């Protein structure tokens, strides 16, 4: 798998093209794990069965995403990108194939173990924000830490810190209803960040936002990427996807292309066929 992965080096987290193993300032703390990809899908299929009808949502997907990458997964509705997102987010289990998240095989885990993985390794950002309306911003942000068993004082400090990082230091006590759409999504991003996950998984994060807020939130993802975070963005909008350093197109349950928008032609010619295979 690792042998024939052509993405090596092509998707360095920062602008400079560095071999994946070379420690950058950001990557230093991950140095020992640097060789381990965050996401490794091998021949993943997902079949839904409703009565006598079976539907193949994914048909043998191979995908490798390394530490610090900023990847957009694109595809029209029905392409299987939502199924892919659910599997990447450990919200659903695959039918066949293997999924390794940060080196850990999660294909065979049960519900409780998956909950644990989601809690520790993945930060979600949803299209609907999915904030709890009764809780203030910082109470929303501390939720993942609550399920991780972090003590109260530390939870609050980390939640406040995460809100400060998304520029909402002055809105911590507000409830979602008192915040604009863009601010709500920022709270959601803070919630995704707070547990310091291996992967930030955003499902149509700008789908419910106007253009100003969209730019705002996408700017935030750019910052996260610049800070060395691994960000996977699921979208059907090209302009959103173009923010990412790498674009994976999905259609009919298969990976159609895997390109680098910054290096469009080169990526297409050199990596097009072998991308993520």
């Amino acid at each position, binding site marked *: 798998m690792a042998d024939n992965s052509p993405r090596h080096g092509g998707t360095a987290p920062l602008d400079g093209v560095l071999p994946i193993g070379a420690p950058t300032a950001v990557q230093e703390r991950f140095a020992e794990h640097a060789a381990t990809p965050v996401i490794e899908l091998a021949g993943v299929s997902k079949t839904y069965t409703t009565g006598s009808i079976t539907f193949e949502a994914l048909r043998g997907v191979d995908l490798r995403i390394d530490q610090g990458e900023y990847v957009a997964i694109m595809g029209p509705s029905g392409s299987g990108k939502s199924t892919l997102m659910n599997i990447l987010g450990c919200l659903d289990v695959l039918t066949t194939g293997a999924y390794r998240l940060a080196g850990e095989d999660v294909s065979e885990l049960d519900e409780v173990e998956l909950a644990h993985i989601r809690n520790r390794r993945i930060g979600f950002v*949803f299209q609907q924000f*999915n904030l709890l309306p009764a809780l203030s911003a910082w109470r929303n942000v501390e*939720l993942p830490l609550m399920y991780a068993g972090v003590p109260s004082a530390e939870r609050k400090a980390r939640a406040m810190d995460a809100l400060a990082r998304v520029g909402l230091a002055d809105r911590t006590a507000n409830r979602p209803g008192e915040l604009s759409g863009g601010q709500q999504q920022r709270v959601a991003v803070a919630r995704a960040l707070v547990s310091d996950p291996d992967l930030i998984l955003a499902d149509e994060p700008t789908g419910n936002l106007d253009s100003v807020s969209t730019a705002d939130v996408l700017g935030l993802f750019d910052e996260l990427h610049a800070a060395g975070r691994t960000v996977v963005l699921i979208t059907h909008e090209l302009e959103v996807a173009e923010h990412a350093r790498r674009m994976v197109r999905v259609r009919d349950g298969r990976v159609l292309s895997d390109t680098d928008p910054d290096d469009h032609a080169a990526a297409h010619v050199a990596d097009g066929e072998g991308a993520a295979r």
Partner: protein
Amino acid sequence: MTWTQTLHTAWSAVRSHTLRSTLTILGILIGIAAVILTVGLGLGSQKDVSARINSLGSNLLIVTPGSSTSTTGVRGGFGSNTTLKRSDAVALTSKDNAPDIAAVAPEKSTQLSLVNGTTNWTTTVTGTTASWLGVRARQLSAGQFITVAQDTARADVVVLGADTATQLYGTTNAVGRTVTINNVEFTVIGVLSTAGSSGNTSLDDLAVVPLSTAAEQLVGGSTRDAVSRIYIEAASAQQLSGASQEATQLLLNLHSITTASSADFTVSSQESLVSTATAVARTLTVLLTGIAALSLLVGGIGVMNIMLVSVTERTREIGLRKALGAPPWAIRRQFLVEASILGLAGGLLGCLLGVVSARTLPKLLNSTIVVSGAAVAGSVVVAVAIGLVFGVYPATRAARLAPIDALRSE
């Protein structure tokens, strides 16, 4: 997720739907209050009954005659025979034969009309001895009671019950006045204090005369020596069974009966009367409590219903919590705690309503309600248990929701 966090989350969920939570709590509240009140009423009536029976006197034994059979073969009920004699009562006072007996008061009762000028009043005229006042634990509000000398002398004196005195003399002092019974003029020497009622019989409507006077002047005939019943006061509560055995043995000897089973009298104790009377009250309590418990069951179903609505309504929240890493048990616990909070709130408020009603209702109903601490504590426990039991199904349903389906729901 610690217990404090779970509690906090559940509490804010309960509070965010004030009306719905209030209505659910109301269901439990009514059930708990009903249980507390019915149990209290039952205990109260048991207490009333035993208090009434105890008001007859303390450490009492009551000897009543057996049944009679007339020459035509008609059998009377218990107490209809005339086998108990004045001499039996005298024999029972013997310290040698019956050391456990402290005092004896025979009673010879008959319904007679009392006349004061143009006023007349029919009541129970009881002939008894000087010890009656002590044995029956009665007090005088005015005058004197019958003395031994008056009994021996067949004096025409009478002590009236409080109600009887009022009927005959109104509010004026009755002591020293005369009253005519069976054409014999009696002098009122005393009036008894009020003592309430024992069952259906008023303890305040009676006239007490010396036993000898009753036998000779008022009844006469062949049954003049018979008494209606004999009250025996044991020296102490511990000596009650001894006194009962002594009385039985003595009376069997006096009546020349060899086998106890063919005795022509019955010796019963207050305890046996109390236990019979309270058994009836207890049956009623169990029945009423059963009905109240049914209303608790309905309240429990209300909790379940509301929790199911809550799970459906908060499907997205459950999905989100699961996506953020909540394991199924944490979700289940959250909903269970929420249901228990509803149960606990209903239980506590129900106790409050029950206790407040128990304080105010007796004045309106003229009955006693005894609120026992055990019933209150038990009710709260039951209320929480109901919340838990009826919360299990909704909580399990919430815990089983698949996160993606839950997140997608609108």
